[in-house]
């Protein structure tokens, strides 16, 4: 009968939802609260929190800054090579972050450009600057995709009207398209930021895993798991879970 199908599909959904909840709750409740709080307050976790926040905020701002013009060009203009470019922008999204990290490492560590940047004081390899670069490179496509679809969602006729009312292209963007895109840009920024906080693979390759130097929360989780300090790992994981849940 018709309701069997409904019951069956809803049951599978409930089972999966329960599984996800159990996994998350298992992490959060693993340590006794007292131990968890002690770890939260430890110098190492405090460092990781601070480093994660600083790097992710900076990389998110960079993503916004770069995504806006690129997304606008892709959403509004036609130019030769646009479809190839659209595809290129999606590659880092399909690319495993680890591979992106190796690519960045080779570029900044071995290539002449990277070497001259390092000589000029912009060292990305095994530095906190590398964490920012890793997050930026891996997250840009996500920000770009949200921004592009936000701009596409603004009817270009708003800009047409603005131009008949005396605006240049840039003024029409600033006075009309951008204010109409706030919600989309905000949502995209939150996603980008939360992905930045959780970024692991690319940062591991480019910035390395050095305790108290490039130790963001995911790297702290990794380092403490490797060295068997489970309660510290759990503390980092708990913070990351809270951030993901809040950012949804």
């Amino acid at each position: 009968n018709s309701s069997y199908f409904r019951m069956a599909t809803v049951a599978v959904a409930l089972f999966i939802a329960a599984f996800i909840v159990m996994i998350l709750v298992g992490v959060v409740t693993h340590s006794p609260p007292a131990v968890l709080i002690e770890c939260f307050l430890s110098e190492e976790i405090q460092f990781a929190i601070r480093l994660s926040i600083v790097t992710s905020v900076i990389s998110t701002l960079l993503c916004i800054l770069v995504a806006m013009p690129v997304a606008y060009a892709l959403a509004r203009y036609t130019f030769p090579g646009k479809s190839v470019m659209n595809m290129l922008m999606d590659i880092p999204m399909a690319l495993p972050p680890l591979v992106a990290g190796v690519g960045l490492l080779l570029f900044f560590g071995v290539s002449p450009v990277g070497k001259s940047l390092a000589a000029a004081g912009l060292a990305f390899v095994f530095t906190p600057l590398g964490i920012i670069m890793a997050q930026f490179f891996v997250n840009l496509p996500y920000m770009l995709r949200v921004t592009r679809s936000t701009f596409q969602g603004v009817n270009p006729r708003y800009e047409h009207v603005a131009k008949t009312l005396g605006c240049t292209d840039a003024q029409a963007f600033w006075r009309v398209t951008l204010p109409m895109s706030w919600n989309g840009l905000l949502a995209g920024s939150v996603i980008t930021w939360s992905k930045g906080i959780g970024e692991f693979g690319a940062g591991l390759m480019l910035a390395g895993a050095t305790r108290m130097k490039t130790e963001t929360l995911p790297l702290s989780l990794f380092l403490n798991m490797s060295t068997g300090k489970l309660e510290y790992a759990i503390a980092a994981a708990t913070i990351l879970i809270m951030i993901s849940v809040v950012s949804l």
Partner: protein
Amino acid sequence: MLVIDSVSKSLGEFSLSNVSLSVEDGEYFIVLGPTGAGKTILLETIAGVYSPNAGRILLNGRDITEVPARERNIGMVYQDYMLFPHLNVEANIGFGLKSRRADPAFIRGKVEESADLLNISHLLHRYPGTLSGGEQQRSAIARALVMEPEALLLDEPLSALDVKTRESLRAELARIHEATGTTIVHITHNFEEVFDLADRVAIMRGGDVIQVGTPEEIFRRPNSDFVAGFVGVENLLRGTGSANGTVAVGDLRIRAENAIPGPVSVAIRPEEIQISKVPLPENGRNVVFGRVDSVRPNGGLVRVSVEAGVPFRVTLTRQGFEETGVAPGDAVYLAFRPSAAHVYSSGEEEA
């Protein structure tokens, strides 16, 4: 005067092909056509949103073909209003003057004047999302008018509104045109707007302008099967015209208002034919004898089909129909003046 001189533009699936039109100063000009006829591209090309692929646009003698939209001084109003949702009505109307860096007090005065003209003074502090469709469209018109544009372009301004609002805003447009004397180009697919508003009408199809004329001319003297069908001329008789203004249609000789020799179509509106069971005096009219095929009431109107060698369709009001007393099978006389029979050459029509 706004002159569109041989303008072509293609844009995806829509296009304009070699369109020429000239709109007089202060004229209310309506462009009528089915969906996909290229009406919106025409307006957007005039406004400067797109550069034409070929041709020129002149506004009051100035060639504005390559002038950017912001320097054309042409106002644009879309069907969907396109009010900036993040600005209140006052800021929307003042938007253009602010672009010109006008003095805030001056902007305020102008905005109030314009809002007053459109009867939306009480809405100045509201946001577009809280307004009805009619109020939004009034605000959009005020936003364009406050710039005192040399021409105002209206892209189906009434199509998104309900019947009552449409009627009242139609009256409003007539009043505003009277009051401001602005040259208006208004595109639509709705006939009702034509008779109430237009000084002249252009009919477009597939990127081409097919006919231009007064509403009267377009509705009574179509120049092609397309226009005749589009404006509801249901009687289209194929025949052979002669130089003296008569057309041979089968056995009938029809006196028409214009003379074109050779293969022609005769267009007769179904509302311009008199029907009677008793013989009708000629008085210079065409009188045809036939038999009633069917009678179909349709709302307040009645559609009568008559077989008279060729089929005729006659539309009567219910009152007019009852007066004639005709019924299916009756022998009837049809009469129509030569001025109701418009002839156009059917030789050059496409399939």
